[in-house]
């Protein structure tokens, strides 16, 4: 809400001083150090209008409707792939992006399948989807050997029944929850088979009564304040919650674990819409973000790993040294990626998701 108000204020100010060069950036909420926004404006003299979303679906609908007015958007790899197919983006002009040389080949290779040759996008950040838990509360309820690093914690109804008293949030994103439930069943997380998806829905339905809320951004504050004790969410968001709790000194101790059964690895890519009003400024923004020091500043702030190799020397020790953010090889081998659902399967998944959430 705070960010939304700030955005509104920024938009009003921008409208007042129309005429100056502007770049409109649409990024995920809580996903940048806002000092960088001011720094960009000071360095380039371009007015930056920064707006936020918290679901890929909202971004995609704006892209497919066309005329969004944004110059830079940040879809996740799977969504990017489909939007490229729809013709939503313009090819990047790498002559205007000298900082692209700093990109990390490990991430470049893994994002190749979403955007072959990186014709349309560069990696902004990447992370995993996993379990955030308030260890004190969870061990108090489930005992010292509570499976905080396992999908058993959130998908075993026996555990969830006990955890409901301290509160559990799940992401309101079927594209995240179905791969996790499939992994729990030992099936292919990228499965498009309706029968297997049905089984995954049954896993989710079994624990549904104990889930307090399905939401994709509220859990940061809820975890940090101790309103809930477990969240299945995005790595950096949970780590932000951990730090907010530590700052508040409120006896809440959050840990993040990618599930040991396997965790989803996702990539948020920056791209320029085909009808961007100011593609030149958009390239300038991309180049600014790919500057190693700027990228490091962003990662140090949001606790997500980035796709920029040269930035790593500027990263704080609690970022680069944290295996929850920059996984070691063993964890990395245990991460999987998924591909977009074809339209018919997408409908099945959304329908199953509605059934899971509403029981209808």
């Amino acid at each position: 809400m705070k960010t939304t108000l700030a955005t509104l204020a920024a938009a009003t100010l921008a409208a007042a001083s129309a005429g100056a060069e502007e770049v409109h950036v649409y990024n995920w909420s809580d996903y940048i150090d806002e000092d960088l926004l001011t720094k960009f404006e000071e360095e380039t003299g371009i007015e930056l209008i920064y707006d936020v979303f918290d679901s890929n679906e909202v971004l995609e609908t704006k892209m497919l409707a066309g005329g969004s007015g944004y110059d830079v958007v940040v879809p996740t790899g799977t969504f990017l792939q489909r939007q490229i197919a729809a013709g939503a983006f313009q090819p990047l002009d790498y002559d205007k992006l000298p900082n692209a040389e700093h990109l990390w080949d490990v991430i470049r290779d893994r994002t190749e399948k979403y955007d072959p040759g990186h014709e349309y996008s560069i990696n902004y950040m990447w992370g995993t989807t996993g379990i955030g838990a308030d260890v004190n509360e969870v061990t108090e309820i489930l005992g010292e050997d509570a499976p905080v690093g396992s999908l058993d914690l959130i998908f075993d109804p026996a555990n969830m029944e006990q955890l409901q008293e301290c509160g559990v949030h799940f992401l309101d994103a079927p594209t995240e929850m179905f791969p996790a439930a499939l992994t729990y069943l030992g099936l292919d997380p990228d499965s498009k088979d309706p029968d297997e998806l049905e089984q995954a829905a049954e896993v989710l339905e079994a624990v549904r009564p104990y889930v307090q809320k399905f939401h994709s951004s509220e859990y940061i504050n809820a975890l940090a304040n101790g309103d809930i004790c477990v969240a299945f969410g995005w790595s950096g968001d949970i780590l932000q919650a951990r730090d907010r709790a530590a700052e508040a000194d409120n006896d809440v101790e959050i840990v993040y674990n990618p599930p040991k059964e396997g965790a989803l690895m996702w990539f948020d890519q920056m791209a320029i819409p085909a009808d961007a009003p100011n593609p030149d400024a958009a390239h300038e923004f991309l180049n600014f973000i790919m500057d190693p020091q700027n990228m490091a500043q962003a990662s140090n702030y949001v606790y997500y790993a980035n796709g920029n190799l040269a930035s790593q020397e500027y990263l704080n020790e609690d970022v680069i040294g944290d295996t929850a953010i920059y996984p070691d090889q063993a964890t990395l081998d245990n991460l999987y990626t998924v591909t977009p659902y074809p339209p018919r399967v997408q409908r099945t998944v959304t329908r199953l998701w509605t059934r899971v959430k509403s029981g209808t």
Partner: protein
Amino acid sequence: MRRFVVVAVPYLWLLALFLIPFVIVLKISLSDPAIAIPPYAPTLDLSEGWQGLKDFFAGLDFENFAFLTTDDLYWKAYLSSLRIAFVATLFTLLVGFPIAYGMARAEERWRPMLLMLVILPFWTSFLIRVYSWMGILSSEGYLNQVLLALGVVAEPLTILNTNAAVYVGIVYTYLPFMILPIYATLEKLDMSLLEAAEDLGCSRLSAFWLVTIPLSVPGIVAGCFLVFIPTIGEFVIPSLLGGSETLMIGKVLWEEFFSNRDWPVASAVAVILLLILIVPIILFQRNEQKQREAEG
């Protein structure tokens, strides 16, 4: 000439703000989804001339409406929306009528201020007012803090993210729409009628029941429609205050549009919703007209 303008202006208004948007939505509801911008096909290409127009119409069909009948989610959502709208309207009436009655019975010099108090909250953004209800109703919210402090409850109540919170939100948001028309009829009420009733042996209560209530019916009906009609399609209140078990057609529409990227099915859902709404809208129009004629 004057007569022509008087008739033409409302119809032009209806054409521009209702019929044209409806035709666009209807057109999309007859198309097929596609991975493109915009995400449906066929799109009308006028540069192709007559052939383009023919191709366009050949690509339209009622497949999406047929699809809606294959899944019980849709009619359940319509029914659930109707039920929530009905119950919420009833609560709004129960809360709104006494307020309107009190306002109409207040001393004349107080009335403008009372009216102002009803309208004033409208000057704050609707979204912010709904958000503040989240702060009041959450388990650590003000309501629970007060109840716990007074010892009314031992454990905080779970109100936020349930249907109860949706009702609170709707009643709060739409209350002025109920109060204002009722107040308007009550204010015009001829007090001598009540005196006559009492002279003829009515108690105050039965005078209220036999005179005030029947005479305020046009206001009550208008207020109920003004609350009922927009509540059926309500999206913001259930998505902010409701839980995942709150099933409303607005939410289903959102999922079709955003999660499935299926604009044609989303449009079909919207067309049906409009057809459902047309009945109460026509009844509302009749009621208004009758009232005007009675006054005229």
